[in-house]
């Protein structure tokens, strides 16, 4: 673990200011730093900035980078989960008590477990096994029963599943297949694939649920979408639409999951990567991995209302505060330059805070905080 004097100072300030901060709205996020095997818990206080509250080392291999990749907080805020992607060869998910940040359990998953979606009741965690190993073969979504941290099944989906998300009613889980040009839906009540949607440009449309998850070549076309993320709609569009980031085609698709049609398209900048829709469904934030920026969309009008540059390159993850006021964005950066967390005010569309984290900051989720902390829930 690299502990800089800057971070020590920041942590000390956070502790000293704890009493005062308890009276202010405090927003907290957990961030996974993939090349540091380090988790950062960051507190942001409007007007005061962002500080690192805690750093938690993960991984067991000092001679290898274990690769903390995806991070998700349970809906009740009691736990957080991080996927340890690299493995030998199978990766893990680690479960921690949020707040004390103590390890609860570790569970082995598949090859390169990446992002996770958690059902609203917190019972099931569905992790996309991205599988960077060897020849492209269809991979799985691991289903973990979180009370006992038992992987109860793997659901075979497609090539390189990524961006696992569960829609608000908990009935369906979605993931994008980067090399199958598909969006895959899993019925959470049966853990079966219940829908597939092709996202290859010009060939968008429903596919047979029990169809293959093979190579994108079979879907034709010179252009590729290479979807990296699926984000379910919220608010009025909850449980009806999902948004798919076409990383290579510079657009986001809004897919109606009732009719299985593309209902809208959003042009973006270079390499849209992760998406976040605010809880009221009004706005969507897309990280633009290739532009060192985020794009903010008004989902009512369908217009991009702002593009905000980020502090470091390779912009990766994004989560919005439950009140929809702020977006928290991770930037991987390059090489030995540490990653950062940026806080973007979604009203003023300005970057309002930045804090330097570990290397390759990526997976992120919002933590409501302990009930007595005054944190924004």
């Amino acid at each position, binding site marked *: 673990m690299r502990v800089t004097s800057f971070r020590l100072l920041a942590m000390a300030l956070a502790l000293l200011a704890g009493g005062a901060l308890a009276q202010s709205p405090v927003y907290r996020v957990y961030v996974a730093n993939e090349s540091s095997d380090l988790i950062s818990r960051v507190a942001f206080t409007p007007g005061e900035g962002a500080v690192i509250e805690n750093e938690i080392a993960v991984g067991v291999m*000092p001679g290898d980078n274990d690769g903390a990749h995806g991070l998700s907080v349970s809906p009740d805020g009691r736990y957080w989960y991080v996927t340890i992607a690299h493995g030998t060869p199978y990766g893990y998910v680690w479960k921690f008590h949020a707040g004390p940040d103590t390890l609860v359990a570790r569970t082995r998953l598949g090859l390169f477990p990446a992002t996770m979606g958690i059902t609203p009741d917190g019972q099931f965690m569905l992790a996309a096994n991205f599988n960077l190993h060897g*020849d492209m073969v269809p991979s799985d979504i691991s289903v973990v029963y979180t009370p006992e941290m038992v992987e109860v099944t793997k659901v075979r989906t497609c090539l390189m599943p990524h961006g696992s998300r569960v829609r608000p009613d908990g009935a369906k889980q979605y993931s994008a297949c980067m090399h199958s040009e598909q969006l895959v839906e899993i019925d959470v009540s049966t853990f079966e694939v219940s829908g597939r949607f092709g996202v290859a440009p010009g060939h968008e449309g429903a596919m047979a649920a029990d169809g293959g998850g093979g190579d994108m070549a079979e879907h034709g076309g010179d252009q590729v979408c290479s979807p990296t993320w699926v984000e379910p709609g919220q608010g009025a569009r909850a449980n009806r639409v999902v948004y798919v980031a076409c990383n290579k085609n510079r657009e986001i698709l809004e897919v109606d999951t009732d009719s299985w049609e593309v209902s809208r398209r959003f042009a973006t900048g270079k390499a849209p990567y992760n998406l976040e829709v605010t809880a009221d469904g009004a706005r969507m934030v897309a990280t633009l991995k290739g532009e060192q920026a985020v794009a903010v969309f008004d989902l009512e009008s369908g217009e991009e209302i702002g593009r905000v540059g980020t502090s470091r390159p390779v912009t990766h993850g994004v989560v919005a505060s439950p009140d929809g006021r702020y977006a928290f964005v991770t930037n991987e950066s390059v090489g030995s330059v540490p990653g950062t967390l940026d806080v973007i005010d979604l009203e003023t569309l300005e970057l309002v805070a930045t804090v330097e984290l570990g290397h390759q900051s990526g997976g992120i989720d919002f933590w409501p905080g302990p009930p007595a902390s005054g944190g924004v829930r």
Partner: protein
Amino acid sequence: MLRSGNGLLMKNDPRGRGTLSGVALATLLFMAGCAGSTSRATIDPSRPPPPSEPPSAEPVVQPETPPPDSTAAETPNTPAPTPGYTPAVQIGARVAVVRTEPAEVVVEVGDSLEMGEDLDLVAYDAAGNPVHGVRILANIDSRFAILEGGYVMGLGEGEAELRMSIQAPPASGTGPPEIKTFSASLTVVGPPVVDVEIVDPGVRFLTGALVRLEARALTAEGGVRRRVEVEWTSNRRRLATVDARGFVTVLRPGEVTISATVDDEITGTYSFEVKENPVEAVEVTGPSRGRTGDVLRYSVAARDAGGGVVEGAPVDYAVASFETRTDMGASIYPDGAFVAERPGLYRVTANVAGRTGQALVEVVERGMEHEVVVTGRGLVADRPTSDLWAFTGNDGRDYVYTGTHLGGQRMLAWDVTNPANPVLTDFVEVDARVVNDVKVNHDATVAAITREGASDRKNGIVVLDLTDPAHPVIADTYTKDLSGGVHNVFFWGDYLYAIHNGTLDVHILDISDPSDVEEVGRWGIDKPGKYLHDIWIADGLAYVSYWNDGVYILDVGDFRWGGTPTVPVEVSSFAYEEGNTHVAFPYTNADGHPYLFVGDEIFDCEDCISRNGVPGDGSRGFIHVLDMEDPENPREVARYEVPEAGAHNLWIEDDRMYVAYYQAGLRVVDVSGELRGDLYRQGREIAWFPTGTPDGHVVNSPMAWGPQPFKGHVFVSDLNSGLWVVRVVPKKKAPIS
């Protein structure tokens, strides 16, 4: 049944019969009630007794769609459904146990069982009746087997757990469904045995002798199945008996045939003639004095009444200590090799068919204590340090290149011509978070460094031109088919062998033109769950560390087995129970013993020092010593294990093994002569040095990564503190006043 195509999902069927649809699942989503669909799944009145669990007090619901033609008895009590839960969840309340059918699940290594065809999962209620319509989720978490695409596949001989889960309403009746988990054991066996061979013990069967026989269960491919039960029998028990472990007690003269039977039908035999025991005296010959760790060879002459030597008499050795202590301190092996871990006086006894002889041996301390003297340091405090390579550059000066880790991005070039003062001359920065390995070719004209964690996730290797070794420059960046990251590399002639994290194969690159690298070959094992870590090449043989699959020895230019640098040929492999094979280093010592030193890297050790404050998160692992006299049949003969730490990289020169032992620092071990047993306990460790420092990246925390002896010094890289230059010198004795 061999696996083919996608897995199959068995759907519930109102007739209580299973139908199969082509949905590919990683693990099986299984509907109980399918039992009865096939000959394997037919519900048998003589099925095993009902589950032993006590009857559930929970309300029981009737399945929404009971199978009308089910041969199973219906559950007599039918409680009301629990509102708010789907029928598939409600019916889970009735389930008391889930079992496999057949009850004993056995799969062969390399073979698979198709779920729903070869293996069914059946739910029962407390009365022992099948419960239909239950969704059963199945999974396996084991190194011996996996469940993938609807098939249970055997990876290696051993026991695995098949976990079966169902959803049910919670006991409180409110809240989310809970998962009930059940398990069944799964046995992975080796391939079928086609022949049994009893190894000739090479001794005469004399009355009064006890001789152990070894049975080898041979497979069709010519391999030997490891885990196998052998039934031993003697055709003339009055003359010789044999016990369940193959020990033959020789009683009376006559012809005897011993049989070893595997799987009730494959039998091998061994016949011998029992002779009256002529041995009247036993002479034990061997050294009377030695040091701890020395392998002392003993031999036996059995003599008859006339003083003649009785050839071929069976010998059992034993050793006893005259010391008063809890541990024996010495061992003697069946071949007469004695080695002591503790000084003292020992008695070596040889038993020849009931007659004994003995010899005394005095063992003294090995007395090779040395000390490590720090000559120089190259502190790296701003980032972790990884591997190193020391060499003499074309300018005649000496250099060490070091890699960096976890946000490192750089390879550092040190001029170490004056070892007391390593001078950082330059660094090469690449798009990577980990530059794990650094290697320089034989002519010191080209170096290769590995890349992991590139910002665009295209990793591969970077080739350096060493025209000016103090200031290496990038000649080529090669990423083709290596984007998953390269962890280690090794030069062999004009070729570079790259360990690719993605394919988990060895990629063979032609590097004769450093500015135009080209892949010319690839080699890897074909096993699910494989993991590749390292490669070392010497004298035309490559040693490939394949984690739980052990070390593989390849002919890449030795030519005895037909291999070439671009088309390697497997010579042999060696796997062991601990797994985690991390590194291998071949070495023939001054006495001509060819050994392979294999290091494993084990974490999640409950008894170890915690690195992250996580219980059981310390590193372990040790060095296995393999006898390579016959490269086709490596044999483990010794080990070196520091009890409180975990081994990492090693190097051997002049009969000294240098091991970077992570938190235990640099260890120096005498590996001269013949090696047997536990080298650490024998006092063969002659020096050690903790590579922690207050000014390190992590203060006072040794994390030794890799050693390399070079021109009388030992260069050591440490994750937390950078480069160390040390000398290993005899320990000075305190002056006598």
